[in-house]
């Protein structure tokens, strides 16, 4: 575990302890299980977001994609009698396709990721509302998919703790994503492109392909989480379902050490970031803070966290530059000369 991740974990434990001391309901099994479920659902699309952010891009359409694919999934299995496995496959394929389109627009058409995905945010939200004619999509009376419901939204008792299956899904996604990002060749390329695309290209990396892949992975994972969220909420009003989720995802990634400039961040950090966000949300409920202040509390904590992190990073860097400086000045002299002509 990186040092940054460790300090985030400590922060979570401190906040958790304080909340538990003020309101012991925080550590009751029911509350923990519900919070864990939220972490599971939000963690998956936050990891999705992290893939894009590491390339130096951003994905703003996460919430809208969750709404669009959510209504699509429910419509397929409830109204069109599509087998749920096939429906899930269609929805994931849809997510992947959205990723391909975003990736191509960013790399080939050279449109800024912010603009591409902002347009996506608007388009998919509109499409979702149009698809259901702004009606709420849900399971009709008596509609029942026992296997799917158990898989996606059920809980299994583990040592007396009802472990939500969304958490199991998150654990699997986390392990795979961790291996891909931190151990695989592709992960190396992803960080290299995020850090310095030109140097990556000079090393023979096909930067465009790497970036497109990141958007595809993001789209696929978002689609997966869309299914879980749809099965959890069981009814979707397309105008509000999943709105602001992209901001939860970006916040979790930033808390987890991702830089919006790209090339930074760890999977463990993103998961811990998600945990912190959900604990904060829970804290607002449990401490009797007006729920209208929910976002304000989150924003404040993130801001303080990022400020503290920057402060600590600067403090720890200072002695190192002192050591590094004589070396760089040796380098700087001939460079000056080179420039002098």
């Amino acid at each position, binding site marked *: 575990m990186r040092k940054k991740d460790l300090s985030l974990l400590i922060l979570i434990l401190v906040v958790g302890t304080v909340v538990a001391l003020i309101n012991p309901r925080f550590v009751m099994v029911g509350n923990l299980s519900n919070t864990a479920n939220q972490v599971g659902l939000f963690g998956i699309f936050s990891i999705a977001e992290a893939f894009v952010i590491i390339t130096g891009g951003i994905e703003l359409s996460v919430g809208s994609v969750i709404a669009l694919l959510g209504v699509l999934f429910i419509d397929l299995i409830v109204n069109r009698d599509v087998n749920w496995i096939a429906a899930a496959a269609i929805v994931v394929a849809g997510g992947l396709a959205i990723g391909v389109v975003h990736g191509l627009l960013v790399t080939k058409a050279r449109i800024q990721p912010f603009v591409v995905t902002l347009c996506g945010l608007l388009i998919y939200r509109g499409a979702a509302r149009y698809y259901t004619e702004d009606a709420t999509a849900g399971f009709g009376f008596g509609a029942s998919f026992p296997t799917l419901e158990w898989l996606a939204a059920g809980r299994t008792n583990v040592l007396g703790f009802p472990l939500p299956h969304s958490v199991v899904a998150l654990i699997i996604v986390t392990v795979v994503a961790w291996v891909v990002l931190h151990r695989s060749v592709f992960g190396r390329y992803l960080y290299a492109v995020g850090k310095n695309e030109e140097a990556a290209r000079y090393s023979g990396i096909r930067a465009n392909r790497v970036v497109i892949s990141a958007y595809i992975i993001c789209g696929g994972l978002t689609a997966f989480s869309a299914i879980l969220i749809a099965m959890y909420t069981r009814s979707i009003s397309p105008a509000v379902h999943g709105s602001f989720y992209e901001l939860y995802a970006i916040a979790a990634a930033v808390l987890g050490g991702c830089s919006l400039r790209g090339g930074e961040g760890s999977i463990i950090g993103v998961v811990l970031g998600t945990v912190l966000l959900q604990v904060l949300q829970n804290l607002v409920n449990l401490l009797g803070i007006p729920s209208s202040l929910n976002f304000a509390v989150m924003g404040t904590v993130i801001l303080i966290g990022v400020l503290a992190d920057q402060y600590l990073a600067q403090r720890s860097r200072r002695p190192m530059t002192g050591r590094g400086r004589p070396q760089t000045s040796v380098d700087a*002299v001939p460079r000056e000369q080179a420039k*002098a002509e």
Partner: protein
Amino acid sequence: MSALLPVQPPMPEPFLELVDISQIFPGVAALDHVSLSVSHGEVIALIGENGAGKSTLMRVLGGVVEPSSGVIRVDGVERRSLTVADAIKAGIAFVHQELNLFDNLDVAGNVYIGREPLHGGPLKLIDRKRLHAQVQPLLDRLEVDFKPDAPLAELSLAQRQLVEIIKALSLDARLVIMDEPTSSLTLTETDRLMQVIAGLRADGVSVIFITHRLNEVMQCAERAVVLRDGRMVGALTRAELAPAAMIRLMIGRDLKSLYVPPAAPPGDSVLEIVDAVTDTYPGRAVSLSVRRGEILGLAGLVGSGRTELARAIFGIDPLRSGAIKLNGEPIRIAEPRAAIQRGIYLVPEDRKRSGLLLDVSITENISLPDLESYQRFWLVNTAREAENAQRQCERLRIRTPGVANFAGSLSGGNQQKIVLAKWLSMRPKVLIFDEPTRGVDVGAKQEIYDILRRLADAGVAILMISSDMEEVIGISDRIAVMREGAISGFLDRSQFSEHNVLQLAVGHTV
């Protein structure tokens, strides 16, 4: 301008004098007791090789750097140094090599940036009418073909240069300094600029221009001042201006002999470039071949198209036309990956931007281009990766506390060796070096030269772009010289001399 001027006899006194200016950078004298005086309406050409100190001297004049010693006299007032504000007040204006203009403003906005005429009132809005009216006479004076409200983004490079000159005139410049103003201009644009310089002179404005093109010196300078290794080695009057005389003054350094002959005579041609045309110089084709075991030096002035050629061979930019052959077989290189797969590697000019990931470990930098060969079931075998990095560090004598350190924490020479280590971990057939020792300290320089020779002896074909005369002459087995996008000649070792290289580079046949 001083009101007294008209009553004085026609300018016996220079208005600006640099006396005994020295500029010491740690370990090296960039300027060594240089003196220069400028009179009204005088056009002075400043010439010399790369690294002679021309730009440094002009930066002293522009107030950008403070000289270590010497005196600057402006209108008889003595000072130790100038600030940028002093220089502007004294009427010294700089037209920079990299133009300092704003793409998102129009011509008038650029000329009067920070000095815009304002409407009265609390909002201090810009009076656009007055702004444009103020610029128009200056445009008329230079007879330019654009209007005050032309967006800068739509102007050509030559027109932008004129905007810089207009900006200088708007500041009542008495001296306009131009640093290689013609290096990226076409022939007609250059002619136009020469006319503008003549016009400035007629108006009593002095011009100092730095150039490598001796015919331009002949065309418009009244005096040429030659710098070499930071010293002023001569001044030529109008009557003495001749290419031979200028070249004679520019060269004549003692070049240390660095040459180590190859172990065996060069073999067959490995890399062959046939009629390659790049986008920078359409209509100019380059043909050359690099043989097995040979170091081919590619000399030429900055901007002669050498880097563009290297980028095209390596697949960074597409070739407009022409062919690349490897061991006699034509190959197509659409991206760097294709070049790398064929064993053609590039050590780029700007290693911080294109060569390295500075805040990534040495190990990961070295393995990056060859990462796929370290993989086992999609995963990177980090142990083998670190082992190889360790081995390369020992082999190339990269001085670092450990291979887990960031590449950016090392000195320039060691960074360059890491870029080399990337390629040497693989099997190079052709290695292209773009300025192999730029920003590298003397000790590491020699080590890099040794590595080059060892690689050549091991059968690698090496193409070495270098603007350092000592390096080109001291390391190469053969030299190709480029000028304005084309090869102007090849030199064998027996013909190697600074004189011959320079003549080819500036446009005279040997």
